[in-house]
């Protein structure tokens, strides 16, 4: 088990190394010169050169990458030994000259909003998705089933940005029962936090619970036709026990897997949701950074998101092995 985790972590780090190398390499062939961006309106060639030096763009790519990797594990300084020395503690994911801050602190700054979205929405969609899926499966073929699955099918075809705007139009502009979305720290005001997040939660949860409802229903129905469920009936178990102990237990594994991966992807930034609702999370940070070609931030966020994806993969595999006795971790 421990060996397995170590092995997976090793592979995960390998994947992240490749991701970071690719991201790094790609900006090497970027059309706009990053130094030029940092130089500002009144730029002189000398200043450009100095910025280029500060950004270390005058170094070979391999040196830049090497220092970057070192920064992640051991921290680093930019412009070491000069007057303008900048410290960037481990884990240092780069330094944003447009924000004049280490990327790590930017990420940490934005993380709470993203965490808020991810956890709020995931609780909602799990509750709604699972329960409607279970009810549908148990009442298969009834009007209730058809109705909820019809909605789920429709909802799964909707776009976050479209639903988000519609909901915002209804709840903020017309009914005015919700404030304009944004982010307030829950430590400042829990109610403001919840009210401002509500639309993001609902929108994400609406679309995702549709998917989970369908997934749950399909999984349950598939398990219901398994021979072992028939065995359970033949033992004389009650319907409720069969459904909870056998059917749900059998159907839960793929759901947990998908959930883990979804959550992992979401933690890396709910890009579209944050964009639509203007929530200052990782997704917004990264889209802004892309728009401004703030390369250290882009690199940092891509890597950070990939970290969540990779971690989610490992966690999912571990959970999977815990849930499915057939899977032996070696």
């Amino acid at each position: 088990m421990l060996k397995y985790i170590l092995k997976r972590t090793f592979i995960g780090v390998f994947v992240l190394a490749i991701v970071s190398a690719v991201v790094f390499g790609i900006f090497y062939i970027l059309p706009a010169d990053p130094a030029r961006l940092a130089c500002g309106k009144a730029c002189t060639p000398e200043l450009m050169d100095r910025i280029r030096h500060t950004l270390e763009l005058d170094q070979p790519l391999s040196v830049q990458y090497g220092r970057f990797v070192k920064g992640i594990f051991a921290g680093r300084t930019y412009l070491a030994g000069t007057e303008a020395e900048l410290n960037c503690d481990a884990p240092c994911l780069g330094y944003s000259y447009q924000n004049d801050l280490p990327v790590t602190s930017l990420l940490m700054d934005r993380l709470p909003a993203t965490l808020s979205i991810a956890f709020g929405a995931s609780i909602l969609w799990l509750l709604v998705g699972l329960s409607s899926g279970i009810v549908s499966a148990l009442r298969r073929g009834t009007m209730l089933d058809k109705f909820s699955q019809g909605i789920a099918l429709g909802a799964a075809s909707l776009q976050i940005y479209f639903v988000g705007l519609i909901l915002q139009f209804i709840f903020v502009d017309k009914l005015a029962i919700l404030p304009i979305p944004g982010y307030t720290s829950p430590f400042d005001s829990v109610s403001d936090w919840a009210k401002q997040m509500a639309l993001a939660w609902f929108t994400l949860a609406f679309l995702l619970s549709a998917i989970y409802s369908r997934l749950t229903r399909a999984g349950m129905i598939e398990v219901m036709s398994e021979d072992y469920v028939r065995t359970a009936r033949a033992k004389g178990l009650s319907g409720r026990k069969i459904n909870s102990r056998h059917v749900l237990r059998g159907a839960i594994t793929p759901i947990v897997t998908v959930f883990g991966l979804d959550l992992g992807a979401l933690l890396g930034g709910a890009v579209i949701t944050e964009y639509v609702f203007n929530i200052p999370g990782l997704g917004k940070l990264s889209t802004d950074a892309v728009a401004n070609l703030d390369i250290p931030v882009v690199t940092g966020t891509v890597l950070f998101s990939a970290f969540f994806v990779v971690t989610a993969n490992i966690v999912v595999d571990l959970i999977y092995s815990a849930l499915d006795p057939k899977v032996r971790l070696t």
Partner: protein
Amino acid sequence: ATPASWVGPVPAKTGATKGGTVTVITQADFEHLDPARNYVGGTLDFYRLFIRTLTQYRTVNGKTELVPDLAADLGTTNDGGLSWTFKLRPNLKYEDGSKITCEDLKYGTMRSYNDDILDGGTTYAKDFIDNPTNYKGPYTDPNGDLYGVQCSAKGDEITYVLTQPIPYFPYVTTFGSFTAIPKAKDTKQNYDNRPFSSGPYKIESYDRGKQLTLVRNSYWDTKTDPIRWNYPDKFVVKMGADQNVIEQSLISDSGEAKTSVSTDTNIVTNLSKVLGKPAYKNRLFSFLSPYNRYYAINVDTVKDVNVRKAIQCAFDFKTVLAAAGGTNSGQYANSTIPPSIKTGYRNFTVCERDVIKNPEAQIAKAKAYLAKASDKKTTLRLAYRDKGVEPLRAAAVEQALKAAGFTVIMDKYPGSGYYSTVSKRGGDKEPDIVQTSWAFDWSAASGIVYALFDARTMTSTDAKSNYSRGNFADLQKLFAQADQSAPAAQEKILGDIEQKLIQDKAAHISIYFERSHMMSGSKLGGVQIDNGWGDLSVIGAYVKK
């Protein structure tokens, strides 16, 4: 005698009371708070709350004028404009109660020479002040001295020695490289996060990208300051809101929005909901901003003047302004110098018509010019920025040019870094037309024409802000003449230069001056339009009881 407007305190606003918190909502964080590094309109205006410069603009009862700030007068020059001497106000204090000295003022200028570390900011000090020893700034050159700035023995006067006569020098000293910073308090690039206050407020906390909180500076004395009020207890700047969100929350005017104002958000989308509606009359501030939206035609690549004239004629001012929001969002322009700068403004024609009265495209004329051209360049690369309505404006231009028979390559650039990219000379993707804008650095032709059209600012690889890359011998001769002229005469020459450049050389098309419509909450008073840099100013804001 000293004019009344030069001495503090500034006249009180009627109905204003002290106390409360004023919230300023902005879309973006200030680029820099370090005065030496800042060059952005809204910030220049805002940081006056805690930064005093040698001279500054004062706006009282809607009238803006240049007045001494740290200085006690607007400077005197005796050697033909080559050196300027300013008297300094006595008894000025920093936020810790220590005295503001002439040496601090000199140091404030000196540190701006270390622009490798303190990037951004204006380059005027470096451009104009005499520096025979090639001083590089205190970080690089700890023992060096800047010859061109000299304090009198008593420390009550400061003298700037220039390399050329600059008649408008007192305007230049409004910028942040002419503020006082005690050497001991200089934290280099970290100064950006916590400038040391000399104004009525000081920084309590600053969370980059999120929030800046200002509280009162008890050592500031209202009697020494003819410019600044100090009504609220606190200013809180909340950053990073979306344009639409700001528009909506200010219109809805609920909760905190009541005491909020946005100084960087022009109401565009929802303008029809508020403009001319009595309910918003008192809190909607509509004014002509100094921003001129214009198109530079690259004379390096579009060499034939007839082609450039064809381009000028093809432009449909109407669709371009519609894309920007219609006549409520802008006022047609023929030049970049606004009519309000009376000494420099010229009323001339573009494509032989008065564009203000007749903004439609002149397709027939465009085709005629194109037919006349010997070097028929019909494929044009239009550079524009992916920000706000700019892509739409570009599309309007594309359409107009196509109608005149041009082929247009649309070159969209990311939001930031646009200007530095399109000013690059040479290269295979150099734009033929640059969609851009300019706001004067001071309200004079000299604050516009030098920066935009003087070939001397350019290098072989960088056009700087001369996006049309104009370098015409006859015009350069006029520039040389202007350098040597007194302010009024200089303004006239600069006006001539612009007219020639647009009318004859056809290197430039100004489309409109932006109309700003900004809002404040209903419980906020004292918000005013400041014509110094053409901004909405919170310097006199107060919370209504």
